[in-house]
Structures are given as structure tokens and as C-alpha cells.
């Protein structure tokens, strides 16, 4: 610690260059913080205590392939299954195709399996009794300023009605509230419509089901029950794949886009560029201080001390920029989430992200500093003092 002022002074010897490098590091770690939050929000989909009690059964081939309605009774009869329900993807958009709404056609008992979604009994009854009724997530309702009683038109991006029109009228009959905002953010975003209305209106569904949701009697039996459900359709034209809700969510996301790979690739490119940039800064900084380093050695600083000071300078540069970048990310994430009108529900910069971030700062700092530190350590005093 007694060398800290010396390391700090060396770091800011060329203020402009150091500040420009710091800005690059801040930008890189700000991006890391934001992208890591995006990755985490995708990873957390389906991760909840209630989610662990549920299995999701979809077509083995692709999640867009439908399953027969007759499977419901067979699944309900599988030992270990407490309840079963189903859903279809509707693919709605409001006013503009860019205003995508996570909309699902479900039977009235669907929410029985989702105790983490709070909705009043009166609203549930209204949903069951109203053919064009829709239950709307809280944030979604806020986003489009919908309230109970509103008539809203949605355009399905997939399903037309019998006349060929893709415009579907709905009436908001209730608001869905996620009781746990951390894990249930998705429910705040979705719209549920009556499966019967959906199935009878579009000529393309004909009683088919998108996927089944099963509530387990015993969480520890998940694997056994999943295998038993899949065995029901083995060697048929509608073979199924049953997974936990978390695995199914991850699989869905992966079919849309491999977020982990995308985030990893972007960050890899960013950090590689950062490595070259800050490496160049450190090399220049040490090269122009050859005489000063020789003086330190002359007055008795050992080779190892000089090596450690250059490494400390490099790590300090990365940690300083990295911590500012992550703090900015922590400040920006709620702003981005709020600004998205509920479309994005990003988690904050958590302990794991900080640990990973600080690890990256230290690793990049050591990598960047190793070559100039090695040169400084091997510096010949007599040659350096003579300017050779």
C-alpha cells in the first residue's frame, strides 16, 4: 500500500492518454454489465419455486408443431401428475407489428397451475364467461394504457379468422399481477385469451394444442414423470419432449436466439479490442518512463518490486475503469427497463456479475501489464541511465 501513491502518480503521468483509455474501459464494462443483465434475464426465465413444480410438454421436433387435444386425458392419467392444462401461441401485435404482445390462448383453469399470478376471482370468472375476454399483465396494460372494460383489437401474426382477417377483437376483463416481480416479470407482460374462442375462430387450429403444462404431485419425481409422458407418444407422428419449465424456457429462447453465445461473442470481441488498446497504452507508458524506472532500481528498488509496480498500475487502470463501468451499468439498467415500457425486465448487476467483472478486470490487467512489467524488470540500469 505504501507504493500506491507512486503507482497512482505513474498512471496519471499522461492524463489525456490515461483518461482516453479509461473511457474505453468504462464503455467496455458498461456494455458487459448491460449484456450480462440481458443474458441473466433470459437465464432466469422459468426459474421459480412454482416453476420447479411444473413440466412443459411440447412437440419433439419444434415448438411450433401442434399436439393433439386427446393427449390431455392421457397425461392426466400418468402417475405423479396432479393437474394438466394447455396453451397455444397466438402471436399478437397491437396497432403496429412492432408492438408484439406475448399472447397465449388458454382454457379458464390455466391459472390454477400458476399461483404466482395474482388475479381476482371475479376477474377469473369474467374471463371464463366472456368469449372475447382477455386477462392482461399489469405492465402490458400500463404500456398501452389499457383498463378493464376496454375493447382492444389485436392482430395475430400467424392466425387468421374464417374470413381471412388477422384482426381479432378482445375485451380486457382483468389484470394479471406477478406476485414475485423478480421471477414473475414475464406474467406482467403477457395477455391470456380464451382457447375456445381461438380454436373456434381460426380454421387452422382444429382442436390442436401448442403445449401442455403439468403440475407434479412430487417435485422429486420430475424426471420419471417426464419420461412417462413422452412414452405416451413414442413412435407416433407427434412425439413429445417434456422438460422442466426452466429447461423448456431455455430451449424456447435458444430456438429464438442463443443469447449466451451472442453476448459471449460480443463481449469476447470487446475485451479483445480492450486488451490491445490498454496493452498499447501500458507499453507506451513504460517505454517513456525507462529513465525513471532505472532511477528506482538505482536507489534500491528490486526487479520484483518494479515488476509488481507496473503490474499494479495496469490492474489499477482496469479496475478503476471497470468499476466505474459496472456502477454506470447498475444505474442505467433500471432506466433501460423503465424506458422499455415493460418489454425488458433486466435484473440489476448482481454479486455474480460483480465477481465475474472484477475477475475480468484483474485478468485483463495482468495480461496487459505482463509484457511491459517484464521489460521493466529486465531493464539494465546502466544502459537505461545512458539512454541506450
Amino acid at each position: 500500500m505504501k507504493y500506491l501513491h507512486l503507482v497512482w502518480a505513474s498512471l496519471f503521468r499522461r492524463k489525456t492518454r490515461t483518461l482516453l483509455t479509461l473511457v474505453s474501459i468504462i464503455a467496455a464494462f458498461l456494455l458487459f454489465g448491460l449484456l450480462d443483465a440481458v443474458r441473466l434475464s433470459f437465464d432466469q426465465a422459468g426459474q421459480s419455486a412454482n416453476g420447479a413444480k411444473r413440466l412443459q410438454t411440447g412437440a419433439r421436433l419444434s415448438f411450433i408443431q401442434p399436439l393433439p387435444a386427446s393427449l390431455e386425458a392421457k397425461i392426466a392419467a400418468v402417475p405423479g401428475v396432479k393437474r394438466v392444462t394447455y396453451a397455444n401461441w397466438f402471436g399478437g401485435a397491437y396497432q403496429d407489428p412492432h408492438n408484439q404482445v406475448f399472447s397465449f390462448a388458454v382454457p379458464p383453469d390455466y391459472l390454477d397451475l400458476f399461483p404466482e399470478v395474482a388475479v381476482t376471482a371475479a376477474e377469473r370468472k369474467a374471463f371464463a364467461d366472456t368469449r372475447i375476454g382477455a386477462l392482461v399483465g399489469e405492465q402490458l396494460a400500463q404500456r398501452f394504457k389499457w383498463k378493464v372494460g376496454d375493447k382492444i383489437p389485436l392482430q395475430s401474426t400467424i392466425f387468421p379468422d374464417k374470413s381471412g382477417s388477422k384482426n381479432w377483437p378482445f375485451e380486457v376483463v382483468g389484470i394479471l399481477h406477478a406476485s414475485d416481480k423478480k421471477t414473475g416479470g414475464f406474467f406482467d407482460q403477457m395477455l391470456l385469451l380464451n382457447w375456445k374462442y381461438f380454436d373456434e375462430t381460426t380454421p387452422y387450429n382444429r382442436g390442436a394444442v401448442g403445449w401442455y403444462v403439468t403440475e407434479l404431485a412430487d417435485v422429486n419425481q420430475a424426471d420419471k414423470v417426464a419420461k412417462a409422458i413422452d412414452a405416451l407418444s413414442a413412435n407416433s407422428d407427434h412425439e413429445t419432449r417434456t422438460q422442466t419449465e426452466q429447461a423448456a424456457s431455455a430451449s424456447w429462447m435458444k430456438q429464438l436466439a442463443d443469447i449466451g453465445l451472442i453476448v459471449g461473442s460480443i463481449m469476447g470481441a470487446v475485451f479483445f479490442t480492450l486488451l490491445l488498446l490498454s496493452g498499447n497504452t501500458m507499453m507506451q507508458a513504460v517505454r517513456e518512463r525507462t529513465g525513471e524506472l532505472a532511477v528506482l532500481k538505482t536507489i534500491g528498488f528490486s526487479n520484483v518490486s518494479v515488476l509488481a509496480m507496473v503490474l499494479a498500475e495496469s490492474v489499477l487502470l482496469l479496475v478503476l475503469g471497470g468499476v466505474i463501468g459496472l456502477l454506470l451499468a447498475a444505474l442505467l439498467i433500471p432506466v433501460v427497463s423503465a424506458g422499455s415500457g415493460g418489454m425488458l425486465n433486466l435484473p440489476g448487476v448482481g454479486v455474480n456479475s460483480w465477481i465475474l467483472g472484477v475477475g475480468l478486470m484483474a485478468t485483463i490487467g495482468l495480461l496487459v501489464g505482463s509484457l511491459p512489467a517484464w521489460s521493466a524488470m529486465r531493464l539494465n540500469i546502466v544502459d537505461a541511465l545512458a539512454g541506450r
Partner: protein
Amino acid sequence: MAKLIEIRDLSKVYERGKQKVEVLHHIDLDVEQGDFLALMGPSGSGKTTLLNLIGGLDLPSGGSISVGGQRLDQLGGGALAKWRAAKVGFVFQFYNLMPMLSAQKNVELPLLLTKLSSGERKKRAAIALQLVGLADRTAHKPTELSGGQQQRVSIARAIVSDPTLLVCDEPTGDLDRQSAEEVLGLLRALNRDHGKTILMVTHDPKAAEYANHTLHLDKGTLVQEVSA
């Protein structure tokens, strides 16, 4: 007086590419404790090389060199660094101060290698700066000081850890006459009043007059000794 430096059959050969250049040839020299010695000679005569060997900055190619009873030619890099920190103070022609540190922090640098507390380091640096007449310039950075003042800060840095030996390589080479005389007067005071043994390389005969003895080097050989 006791001998501080004993040099026997000292030679130094540098390799410049495939060429070998013998800079010092079989030097024998004794320097007594408390002496003030000037080393003179033309450029390339080996003055700085001899000074570097005595200061433990370089190792000889042959012969032996002993300072305060310690055989420097037998020490490794780490031990030599420790020895320099404890026993030698260096003064350079171009001061070689850290430009980003204040005078006080520059003087404190050698004390960072000791176990002294921050308060004690600060106190000793202040005393050293007072000794060289710069008590009112402690917070100034090198660029805010004149050449003579910078050299005095450099002398304060050299003496702050109370070394036995001061090696000075052209300490007045970059100074005007008045500043040079102030610096030389300061070195003489350190020698007379504080008992520091001083070895000074110089081209300037007037500077050499401040020393007790003057040695002349020519082509790597000691050619004569002149008493002041």
C-alpha cells in the same frame, strides 16, 4: 582513516554486438572513509563506468571491488539492490527526479524501501530538504523548480537514508555557475560536516577544486593523482 573503498585489478569489458570493448584496465584504488574525490578525464575514459561499479550499478568483468568491507563483485542482483538502498546515495547530471511527484515525495522514495512509518518518512524527508535549503519547496513538483533547486532535491533524496557513500555523476554539468557553486558548496558541507564520503565525476576543473583529491582517468587507466 579507514579505507571505505578497495579496488584491485578491476577491469570492465562491454560487448557491443560482436565487438568487445575494454573500458577499464586493471585499476587499483583505495578511498578513505570521509574523503571527497573528484574523477576527471576525457569523454570515454571510463569515469562513469568506474563510478557505476563503485555504486553497485554494474558488475566488473575482472578484479575485485570492496565498499565498506562488502565485496560487490560477489553480490547478486537482489543483494546489490539492497546494498545500494542502504549504503549509497546517487546524484545525477540531469537530476532524474520523478516529474509527477512533489519534492517531498521524491525525497521519500528511498525510504519506501525501509520499514519506517509514513509519518517518520515524511519527517525525515522534511529534514533532508531543510538541510539542502528547500524547506519551503516541499510541495513543488520538479517542473516548478529551477535546475539548481532540482539538483538540491536530488541531493536530499541521496542523503535521506543516511548512506555512507555519495556518488555524483557530473552533478553540476547542467547548471549555471552560481547554481553549480551552491551545489558544490552543499556537497562539501555534507563531506566536512556530516562525514559523507563523496565520489564525483566532473569535467569541470573548478568543480574538482571542491574535492580533497582529484584522480585522472585516460583510456580506462588511472594516470595520476592530484591533491587539492
